[in-house]
């Protein structure tokens, strides 16, 4: 059987540009969508928000002050007036936990802000310039990394003196190294991507390439590292305050509360339990959120 050519008419070919029906989603929306599907991370986020509200606004509803002694109500067990009880100087533990959480959160976010700034700057330069500069900068990092951070955090605190401001500085300095490494790794792998070459072909300046192409594409990784460094910083502050190098009285931190509560464990366990419990809950919530962020930003987890 042969088909006659006349039987065919050419298909009317309309070359219309295709239309995309899916609503536009940015990478942030995509990450948030994945984050929402993770129950642990969402739980962490809810707990974290509650703690932030508790620390920020709780003191306004409290009848007590975190530093005024009340020697008539010393070492009270939890009761209706003092839900968390009082400590050995008669101060309301609930109010003190609120202030302690404030300090912890401030130190968590503040020190990460410092190490973000140093880390992005250092890692960005090292990764983008590459070659010999990178080599020297990385060896410096290796040297810093080879000293246990606990050792030089304690040394720095001793040298600078204890106090809230110094804790920010010391923890910021202590944690920038891993951040710088992550940023460098990201920049190094993105630098050779074709979209960066395309920008260079167009004559884009170094600043433009870093700010518009390299850093925005590393932002997911940076956020993940930062989110996991916050609990580490909080824990470090609690530890410093616990050994007496951190926040000085009358300022209160969860670590210094735990330290003073430790002396009375046998008779008044509540004065250790509440600040220590707060540290644990805070760390757990941050770690869950951090893990959730990592999964949300990791393209390999994309479903």
């Amino acid at each position, binding site marked *: 059987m042969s088909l006659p050519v006349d039987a065919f008419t050419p298909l009317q070919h309309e070359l219309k540009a295709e239309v995309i029906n*899916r609503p536009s989603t940015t990478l942030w929306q995509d990450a948030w969508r994945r984050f929402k599907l993770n129950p642990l991370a969402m739980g962490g986020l809810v707990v974290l928000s509650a703690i932030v509200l508790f620390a920020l606004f709780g003191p306004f509803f409290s009848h007590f002050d975190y530093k005024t002694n009340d020697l008539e109500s010393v070492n009270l067990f939890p009761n209706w007036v003092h839900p968390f009880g009082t400590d050995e100087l008669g101060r309301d533990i609930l109010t003190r936990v609120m202030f302690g959480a404030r300090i912890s959160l401030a130190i968590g976010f503040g020190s990460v802000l410092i190490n973000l700034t140093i880390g992005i700057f250092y890692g960005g330069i090292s990764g983008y310039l590459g070659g010999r500069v990178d080599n020297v900068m990385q060896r410096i990092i290796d040297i810093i990394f080879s000293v246990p951070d606990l050792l030089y955090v304690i040394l720095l605190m001793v040298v600078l003196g204890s106090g809230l401001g110094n804790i920010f500085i010391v923890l910021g300095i202590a944690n920038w190294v891993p951040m710088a490494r992550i940023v460098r790794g990201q920049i190094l792998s993105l630098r050779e991507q074709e979209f960066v070459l395309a920008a260079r072909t167009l004559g884009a300046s170094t600043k433009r390439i870093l700010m518009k192409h390299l850093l925005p*594409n590393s932002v997911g990784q940076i956020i993940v590292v930062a989110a996991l460094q916050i609990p580490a910083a909080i824990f470090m502050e609690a530890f410093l305050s616990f050994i007496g190098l951190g926040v000085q009285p009358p300022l209160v931190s969860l670590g210094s509360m735990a330290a003073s509560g430790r002396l009375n464990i046998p008779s008044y366990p509540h004065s250790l339990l509440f600040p220590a419990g707060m540290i644990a809950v805070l760390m757990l919530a941050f770690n869950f959120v951090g893990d959730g962020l990592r999964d949300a930003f990791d393209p390999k987890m994309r479903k």
Partner: protein
Amino acid sequence: MSAAVKSEIILEVENLVKHFPIDKGLFAKGERKVHAVNGVSFQLHRGETLGLVGESGCGKSTAGRTIIRLYDATSGQVRYKGKNVYDLNAKDMMGVRSDIQMIFQDPYASLNPRMTVGDIIGEALDIHRLASGQKRTDRIYGLLETVGLNPEHANRFPHEFSGGQRQRIGIARSLAVDPKVIICDEPISALDVSIQAQIVNMLEDLQEKLGLTYLFIAHDLSMVKHISHRIAVMYLGRIVELTSSSDLYGHPLHPYTQALLSAIPIPDPDVEMKRQRIVLQGTVPSPIDPPSGCYFRTRCPHAEDICAQKVPELLERGSEHFVACHFA
């Protein structure tokens, strides 16, 4: 086609060499290096398409990237409109950058995932301060239409497009600065065959409409034959044969070209049955330690003593037919 070949020379590459040092580090001596491009010379005439073919790793992409100074050349010259681009200062180089553009191989890697399509194309306009405000928007829409995309998608992100559409976005970006020469670095090898034809046809239409000159880097011989006026065949960082595409496919003179062409399947069963494949022995030598004399001698069926001693020059062996072989 032949008229285009005779027109003025717009870009001239002379003895381009690019070596990459291998031993990096603080105390490296930097003696070992990858000989990626070893003295490549050719001329691009205004309005023509020069195909640059060769197998993976032969240095064709490196040559393309070195020409537009993405890499610093080890030695050699690239003259654009008579001026060596390696000697230009930053300001003059910006002018050349808007005249010579590049289309990249991987449409998934060549668009910044954090920028909207409008910003990706608009970046070219911003860098060269060509348009701003409403004019910028109009220009972006116009470019999107030129490459057959819907202007409404200007505020979409690259991941929402298919491979072919992304490649069109990449082409729109390179067209934004009104280039004269476009280096197409395997622009179709990452695409489906059906999409390849669309993109190639669009590139041809654009060439006609805008008077573009292409350096078309590829390894798909039949596609290169379709689009190129002239073709240069590369082997291990050197051009072994350079001639018009009809000449190359009709009378290949270099043994490497002959072997390459014999590998193309012919879409006619009767002819295909009789096709004689020339199967080369061995593998491509390492570009870290290339053989002496003719680089192809280790696999060449006609190799003799002279091939190991003397580097064959690229000489004219017919009208406009250049071959680098002692026996051509």
